């Protein structure tokens, strides 16, 4: 039922430092702190002077206290911690308006976090060769209802109910970078009420 094999499904790779960049802007959410720590270590070893031109924006998982902030601060002067993703993204956007060419963006965290960060990067014409992203943490999806255009957050099941129109949607692998969401299509349009078994597939 889950439509797979669709090319728009993003593919992520382990985060590596890009020494060709002049400025390094890093965004992390939750366990995304680990890859960022690794990249900082890599920069410290290969191009330590780059750490002076590095910024880290980080938000811990809700309700949890982790030690990433302190560990980032040991290497980088400009570390900013936020209480939530929206606050982090607002600061990210403000930073991009004054950032210069030569900037590399690193994003680590759940795919939904990567997606919304990438969407902002896209507005600033950051291209694939300027952005690196590593997916870690929850696979929960943002799902865009193609019928009412609302976005449902944190979808973990193959069939999800739209937060706005209450339709049951099949979550496809068809991903939109512009909406930073997977497309959800009404599951029981042919026979109302006839739904496939609902399973958790995006843990």
């Amino acid at each position, binding site marked *: 039922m889950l439509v797979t094999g669709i090319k728009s499904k993003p593919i992520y790779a382990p985060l590596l430092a890009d020494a060709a960049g*002049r400025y390094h802007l890093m965004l992390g959410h939750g366990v995304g702190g680990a890859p960022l720590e690794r990249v900082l270590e890599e920069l410290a070893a290969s191009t330590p002077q780059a750490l002076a031109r590095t910024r880290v924006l980080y938000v811990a998982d809700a309700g949890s206290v982790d030690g990433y902030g302190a560990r980032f601060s040991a290497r980088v002067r400009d570390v900013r911690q936020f209480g939530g993703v929206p606050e982090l993204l607002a600061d990210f956007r403000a930073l991009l308006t004054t950032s*210069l060419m030569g900037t590399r963006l690193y994003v680590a965290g759940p795919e939904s976090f990567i997606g919304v960060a990438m969407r902002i990067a896209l507005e600033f*014409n950051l291209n694939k060769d*300027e952005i690196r992203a590593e997916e870690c943490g929850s696979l929960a999806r943002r799902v865009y209802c193609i019928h009412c255009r609302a976005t449902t957050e944190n979808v973990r099941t193959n069939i999800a109910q739209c937060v706005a129109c209450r339709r049951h949607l099949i979550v496809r692998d068809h991903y939109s970078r512009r909406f930073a969401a997977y497309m959800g299509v009404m599951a029981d349009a042919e026979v109302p009420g006839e739904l496939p078994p609902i399973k958790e597939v995006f843990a």
Partner: protein
Amino acid sequence: MTQAATIAVEVAAIEQVTPLIKHFTLAPLAGGTLPAFSGGSHIVVVMKRADRVHRNPYSLMSRPGRLDSYEISVRRMETSRGGSHFMHDEVKVGSRLEIAHPVNLFALDKIARKHVLIAGGIGITPFMAQLQDLHAANVPYEMHYSVRAPEHAAFLDRLGEEEGERLHMYYDSRGEVIDCEGLLTSQPLGTHVYVCGPAGMIEHVVATARAAGWADSHIHWEQFSAPPVGDAFEVFLARSKLKVHVLPDQSLLESIEAAGVDVPYLCRGGVCGFCFTKVVELDGELIHNDHFLSADEKNSGKYLMPCVSRARCRNLVLDL
């Protein structure tokens, strides 16, 4: 692949714009309109001389959207293989030429947040059309134009009038040079740089941009290298079963075409990759002059771009 049909044109006007540059207006012989194009496009002009055919690429300079004629400019090269001298000395108002359809290998990025255009000398030509596209777009840009001396600054009146403060002029004769490092370390995110001019200028701009951390997707350049001259050599075309002799001042592609074998091409300057050809046998060395193949591909000796590359060899067999 056979070549798309060419378009017959007539030279409607010629203007000497600098001591070295002539400007040609080409109108369709059959009347009507020419194919549409976007800023940065070039055409290939077919010049039929008594003993050989030249096909040289020239950037379209007219306003995209104006299709009753095309405008190109030709700089007279000191060491011409014949093409630029033919255009300067033999082509008159009323002369008939053939041109290939426009192709754009130097397009403006459509979602850029800013454009920085850098031209050296005759390299201004693709920008003349791009600037027209930019007037219609709501995106900031700067034009940096470097020439030898004021008398060599082609189209300066028009540029000065239309571009105002966006135009920055640099004259070698006054010791003025473009501060590439200053320029490329201070651009906002989403800026694209475009450079067209002498090889040294392109290399300098590309290297400076990379050193400033620019990703390659934001760096654009166009250079039509004239096919370098070299020693004569022979080549065997395996599929056509033809032996072809390449003269010192003739390109491999021209020699193959003269033998009646079609090779697909777009730029004829070592940029586009269309004439990519496989080497079947080689006893000697290839002289790669293109900007398309990677260093590994060049070293492998398995491929070459016949528009600009040659060989120094006893035996060369191509898959043509």
